[in-house]
């Protein structure tokens, strides 16, 4: 009996000792940092370093954060929850000092919880800042939000979303708020924030762009996976900020380097167009391939057509002939004469009579070869693939309004556009000083200048951004005309096309439009 117990104990001891071996293999701490060692350590340590999971890989190691985590005895999740509730209460009760202190504590407890950083930085910069009446206080809170993100970045160096937010806040919140004039001035003069950064590099769009570029570098060079963000939009941002910078410089009357800024933005835009972006099926694609893809698609379509001219149309006619009598009748009827029932039938029929390229390819003699040496079926498949590719590229390009920005860069780097903008800027200044005669003269110079620009780059006429900018000026010009006794824009007004395109539709008809009742 006694002996049995003894053996059992020895067996346990041996088991424990044996289990220690795999444990040591798995969990031996990393030797990195010790002299003469090169990383290594147990399996877990190596995996941690491979997947960038150890604290030192994530970002700064903060003694305060580690202490507070230790002091909460593993309950830091619970503590963070309680603090989160408290922070909501402080926000409700407008106790801002306590709110920012509480946020600090939450992030010390869970410094690698990215959503906290993002959510609360937004809270500070957007929701808390507007609670203050003085724009300088508001700026201060926007800056706190930015600093909060910056702290988050220090803890999470490999997190592109934080860098991206950082760039967004600096660019958009400072540059596009109602207070952007004041904010931009404060930002420019903010030695606390900029330190030694020379004044010409302090523009918020340029500073914000640096963060975007860092986010981009992490994704491009360090292989960090971009989560929860659309890569098409993610990668255009550094360029967008350059475009905004160029536009804002002109808005603020800085015309000296205007052409240079637009050219720089254009070059950046072209680089973006040439960048590899992940497609929907993760196959990389480049936005600049859009025109060549369309071209090649057309070429292959022509080749397919050349193999058996008119085949597609003939097949369609066959399908129409195969429809039921009702369907055919509805399908062939002109749209405006169809009733509800016929609309439905026609829509069904349209689907049925559609002839795909594959169907055409299958019908043609498989031994035939096109000009580029492809058989009909290969040809048809390639055309379909190209069609899909083109539509993806087109949607990507539309998402970032690429064609507009390319045209705009070209138009804005034209000295004509700069002259026109300068005239309008001076007109606005004169208008604000109530020198209306000068303002009218300057506006008219500007209008003439813009006419030339619009004629040279006709696609800008329909663009909403240019449209709203010009309409703003036209509104002021009209006000001056009214002062001079002219109530309507002249019929030969140079920007009538812009007015027609962009003037908001007034729901109440003008007096001249109300039909006169015949007199009794």
């Amino acid at each position, binding site marked *: 009996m006694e002996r049995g117990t003894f053996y059992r104990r020895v067996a346990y001891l041996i088991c424990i000792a044996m289990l220690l071996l795999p444990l040591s293999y798995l969990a031996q701490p990393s030797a990195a940092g010790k002299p003469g060692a090169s990383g290594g350590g147990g399996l877990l340590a190596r995996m941690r370093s491979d997947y960038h999971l150890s604290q030192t890989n994530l970002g700064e190691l903060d003694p305060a954060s580690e*202490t507070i985590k230790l002091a909460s005895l593993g309950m830091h999740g619970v503590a963070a929850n309680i603090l989160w509730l408290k922070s909501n209460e402080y926000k409700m009760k407008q106790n801002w*000092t306590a709110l920012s202190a509480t946020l*600090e504590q939450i992030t*010390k407890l869970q410094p690698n919880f990215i959503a906290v950083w993002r959510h609360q930085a937004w809270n500070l910069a957007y929701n808390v800042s507007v609670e203050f*009446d*003085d*724009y300088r206080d508001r700026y201060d809170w926007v800056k706190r939000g930015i600093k909060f993100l910056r702290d988050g970045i220090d803890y999470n160096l490999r997190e592109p979303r934080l860098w991206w937010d950082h760039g967004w806040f600096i660019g958009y919140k400072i540059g596009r708020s109602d207070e952007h004039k004041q904010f931009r001035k404060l930002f420019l003069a903010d030695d606390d924030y900029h330190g030694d950064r020379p004044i010409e590099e302090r523009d918020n769009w340029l500073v914000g762009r640096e963060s975007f570029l860092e986010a981009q570098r992490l994704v491009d060079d360090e292989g960090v996976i971009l989560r929860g963000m659309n890569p098409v939009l993610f990668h255009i941002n550094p360029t967008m900020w350059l475009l905004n910078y160029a536009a804002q410089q002109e808005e603020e009357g800085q015309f000296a380097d205007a052409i240079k800024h637009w050219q720089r933005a254009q070059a950046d835009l072209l680089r973006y167009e040439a960048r590899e972006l992940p497609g929907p099926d993760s196959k990389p694609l480049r936005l600049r391939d859009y025109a060549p893809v369309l071209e090649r698609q057309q070429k292959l379509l022509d080749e397919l057509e050349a193999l058996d001219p008119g085949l597609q149309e003939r097949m369609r006619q066959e399908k129409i002939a195969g429809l039921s009598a009702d369907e055919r009748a509805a399908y062939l009827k002109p749209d405006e004469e169809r009733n509800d029932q016929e609309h439905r039938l026609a829509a069904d029929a349209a689907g049925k009579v559609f002839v795909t390229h594959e169907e055409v390819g299958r019908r043609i003699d498989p031994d035939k070869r096109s000009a580029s040496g492809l058989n009909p079926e290969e040809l048809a498949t390639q055309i379909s693939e190209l069609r899909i590719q083109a539509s993806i590229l087109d949607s990507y390009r539309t998402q970032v309004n690429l064609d507009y920005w390319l045209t705009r860069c070209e138009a804005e780097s034209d000295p004509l556009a700069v002259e026109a903008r300068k005239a309008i800027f001076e007109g606005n200044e004169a208008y604000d000083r109530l020198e209306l005669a000068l303002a009218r003269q300057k506006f008219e110079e500007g209008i003439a200048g813009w006419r030339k620009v619009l004629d040279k780059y006709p696609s800008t006429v329909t663009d909403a951004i240019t449209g709203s900018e010009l309409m703003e000026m036209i509104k002021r010009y009209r006000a001056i005309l009214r002062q001079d006794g002219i109530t309507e824009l002249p019929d030969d007004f140079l920007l009538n096309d812009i007015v027609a395109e962009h003037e908001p539709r007034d729901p109440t008809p003008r007096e001249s439009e109300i039909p006169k009742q015949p007199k009794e």
Partner: protein
Amino acid sequence: MVFEKELLPTLNEWLLNSGGLWLLVVAALSATAVVLGLVFQLIRFGPRAALRSVGQVIGNFFGDVLGISPRRVAALAALAVKESIRRRVLYVFVVFALLLAFAGWFLDPRSDNPAKLYLTFLLNAVSFLSLVMAVVLSATSLPADLKNRTIQTVVTKPVRATEIVLGRILGFSFTGTLLLLAMALPSYVFVYRTLSHSHAIDAASMVEVRNVPGALQGRTSSVNGHAHDFTVDAQGLGRTVVEQGHWHRVSSEQVGGQTRYVVGPPEDQLTAKVPVYGQLTFVSRDGTPADKGINVGNEWTYLSYIDGATRAAAIWTFDGVTPDRFPDGLPVEMNLKVFRTYKGDIEKTILGSIKLRRALPPMPATKDETQRRDAMIQRQLERASQPTSEPKNFFVQEYKTDQVVFPRKLNDSSGKEIDLFEVLAPDGRIEVEVQCLQGGQYFGMAQPDVYLRAAYAPFWLNYLKCFSGVWLQMVLVTAFGVMFSTFLSAPVALLATLSVMAAGYFNVVDTMIEYGLGRNLGGGIAESAVRLFLQSNLTTPLESGWGTTFVKLFDAVTMPFLVVVASILPDLNQFNHVPFVANGYDIPNQVMALRLLAALGYFIPLAIVGYLFFRNREVAV
């Protein structure tokens, strides 16, 4: 500063209401105890023995109370002090030292009001530490003595049970007092030193002020995340604007033929303003009187808003406005909020106006709502004929205190010079009316947001007063601990005292009462438990049936008990005066007096209950 509960009652009011209630509760409790005792003895030994034994207990009690010898209590207290030192209570001080050493890690000196942040943190830390110490010391000492039988060495001496209980409470409180004092000084020095700073001025970067000959303006260097704009006059003297709740004096000196500007220490950072608060009423936009202003859509209904460029106004009525209290005129301080319905001129703040008016006699109290409304409307009409000062306009600075000083000699609304006290406050009562002057914009306020600054009290005194609040908390918790330890074993007494402390400290009392009165969604204890188990939403009614009936019945019986317990528990937060100190307001002496009385109200019954339990333990007889 935010007072979410009603501003303080006067001492008399309090004595009448709370004091009376206290007497009632104590009397009821004593009567219950006597009756229960009688009933038990009656069942066990019959009527005569019951009467005799209860009479004996009462007789003993008075004998023990009247026979208390201060000398013996002091000796026992000294013993308790020795014991606490032996039990390494000084470790608390080590924890405190650690806290001070590393506080800098967790506190951001760039916060918008570092003084508030530091004071809040430190004072709360001190109060928490001292409470934990009080709990551990008081709840474990007696049971340990009983267990080791060391108590025998005391009870065999000619001491009374009252003296043992009192001696413990006083002794542990004394240790706590010493510790608190020892923590008060270092934390004061810590706050003072971390907050004191100065800025440098680069004389070359200063520019002239337009239209003021000789005056210069500029911006100081940035320290602790803030810099001040400042102006100096032709003599080189001036001051900075307020940032992070303080400002600095600026002076100049000549060094080697060059002017050098020197920034003084922070001013108004650690202050204790003595405010005189008034009663607030409103006038709505159409000129009718109202109890509240408009809510601009905040979830928090503490602030009321008045709309600009209408007849809407906020009117505070102040008492005790006399020339000897305000010899230099009437300094009115305002912490108003602004709500804009449109941005307007972003660079300008919103314009308001303030005027003084002779106050109407106090409104007679009436319970009838219609009568009260009529009286209010009548008063609003009478207001128009009261003498009024010329309005002063001001731009509201949110989150900074706006100051308007009305001199003794000022113009009335017709431009005639009058004496403030003789004409506007002949009986020491005066009205202050605030209006917003810009249409579509609103001012927000609560009762304590406009006050008369009577004086500045010394900050260190205010700091001490705050510590005395902590001290009262500590004494109370000690009394609870000793009381529990007279009849519970050490761990249970510890738990009970901790619960009392937690309930009071984390403001659970109010919540418990809310629950008990069934004001919250989801029902009482049993119903919440069922809902938790069923994962049912708070608002869906439970399926009717005998189960639900039982659960509801159970709650109906138990919840009143919860209300009683919660009502008896002390609200330790009441003794927390940290917000006063942190926001730079003097703790009114009246508050101190009320808190002292409240503490006594607990202390006496606790000591008696402790005595009764201890007296009835085998060992003490």
